[in-house]
């Protein structure tokens, strides 16, 4: 029929991809480019891990954490630094979690953000997060070690690291608290809960996964810091483990730094083994964060 012929001669619609268009080309490259970004990160990590494992392999045994430093590399270990790290990080965690979460609760739940001083606090917390760690070391030395007379002790080190990571903990906790839907607060208040009960029973439990992630990231940063602790006098050569908050101490990054700067090859092998130990502690901390997150979500 003529009608059909007429339909056939209608303008042709082309629905095939116009490959020449730059935006379409970019779209097709997107998976490749983003995969490459992931690969770079993973490759760097893998190279690092493989290299320290290979280098440290000859000395990788329990000796690293059971023997004290010694002049002869084959007799030396990082026992004092290993326990020093655990003491310092333990105190840092015990200090920065309550203070950081407390500050975040004030800023999110209680402060009237229309007041200029509360906005000023907010801006300055963000600024503090960007201050280089060495500056916290100077603060720790002048204010904690000398000013307060804490001396070159575990507690002075932990307080210095606490000051350093607090802004990070506060910012992460605030974000986590902010993400708790206000409908949950209304439900709690509507049931006759006080503000403290609402925060303690509803807001903080719901914010726990986010807070845990932030805290662990902050502690992971603190655990690898050498600079501020060298400044406040974390010693490089001590032959005893800390016995309490007022002990002298050293930590793994300082010990590693010290060994790497020695001329003997054996000490560098030992340093690589100590790095493996440090990575091991980081891995344990991160697993803990993931466990807390999953546990809190499961209860959610």
């Amino acid at each position, binding site marked *: 029929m003529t009608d059909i012929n007429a339909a056939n001669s209608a303008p042709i619609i082309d629905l095939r991809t116009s490959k020449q268009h730059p935006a379409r080309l970019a779209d097709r490259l997107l998976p490749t480019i983003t995969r490459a970004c992931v690969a770079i990160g993973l490759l760097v990590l893998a190279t690092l891990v493989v290299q320290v494992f290979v280098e440290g392999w000859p000395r990788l045994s329990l000796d690293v954490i059971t023997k004290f430093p010694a002049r002869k590399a084959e007799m030396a270990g990082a026992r004092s630094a290993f326990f020093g790290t655990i003491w310092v990080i333990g105190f840092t965690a015990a200090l920065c979690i309550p203070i950081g979460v407390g500050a975040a609760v004030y800023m999110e739940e209680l402060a009237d953000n229309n007041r200029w001083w509360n906005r000023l606090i907010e801006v300055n917390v963000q600024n503090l997060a960007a201050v280089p760690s060495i500056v916290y070391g100077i603060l720790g030395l002048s204010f904690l070690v000398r000013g307060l007379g804490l001396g070159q002790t575990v507690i002075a080190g932990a307080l210095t690291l606490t000051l350093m990571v607090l802004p990070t903990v506060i910012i992460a906790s605030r974000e986590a608290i902010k993400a708790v839907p206000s409908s949950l607060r209304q439900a709690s*208040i509507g*049931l*006759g809960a006080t503000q403290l009960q609402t925060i303690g029973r509803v807001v903080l439990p719901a914010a726990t996964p986010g807070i845990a992630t932030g805290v662990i990231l902050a502690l992971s940063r603190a655990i690898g810091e050498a600079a501020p602790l060298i400044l406040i006098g974390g010693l490089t050569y001590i032959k005893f483990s800390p016995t309490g908050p007022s002990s002298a101490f050293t930590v793994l990054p300082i010990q590693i730094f010290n060994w790497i700067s020695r001329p003997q090859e054996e000490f560098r092998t030992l340093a690589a083994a100590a790095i493996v130990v440090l990575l091991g502690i980081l891995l344990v901390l991160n697993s803990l964060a993931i466990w807390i997150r999953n546990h809190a979500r499961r209860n959610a």
Partner: protein
Amino acid sequence: MSSITVPVAVPSSDLLRDVSSSSVFELRGVNVHYGTHLAVSDVSVDIAEHQITAFIGPSGCGKSTLLRCFNRTNDLIVGATVSGLVRYHGINLYGPDVDAIELRRRIGMVFQKPNPFPKSIFDNVAFGPRVTGMAKRDLNDWVEVCLRRAALWDEVKDKLKQSGLSLSGGQQQRLCIARAIAVRPDVILMDEPCSALDPIATARIEELMIELREEFTIVIVTHNMQQAARISNRTAFFGVDVSEVGVRRGVLIEEGATYDLFTKPRQTRTEEYITGRFG
């Protein structure tokens, strides 16, 4: 017959007829401001005991705002101020010696979107009793009583430890009702409790509300006129007055027994709204 030709909804059941009873709330000349903006203007209305009172009206007429005066959750909104008299069993709610937290333990609230806590079903219902200090040994029984009253027990009795968020929307809303009645309130405020639910879940909640009326006084805000007609004893119809300069404020246009309001409204605006000619 009145001038209404096609009523959209007419309450059918005799059960729902207004039975005169004493008032739980008396509002006299209540204004609510947000900052300098007058959101609700000069509302005087009584809320009758053991009745379901529905607040209907177009969006922005201030019915939810007014509802929040009954448990003083307006206090939590920065800049919101309430003036006029709100009396609860004769007590001035905004008087100096009224503790808002004590008040909220007597007045439950159910929200538009089901908002169970991210906790177990049991812990959701137990939340109110716990914050008000109920003894641990009584909790198990009481949670069961509340879940039964909210018509949810049979569906959840085997999974009390599971998250409240694992339930369907309608079940979540009934969980929120169970949670609200667990603090033994005498009033339950409901702010569009069914607007996020499908018709079947809505029907179950409506059935539940009619049962709960025996024990509680219920005030419900609803956009759904058929719902008001189906379940409420009394209806308050709100409207929006727009001034010459375009400032909008919510006003109470008419309040009365639901049957009367839907069949022989006294105000033209009410008639227009319920017949669908406006709003």
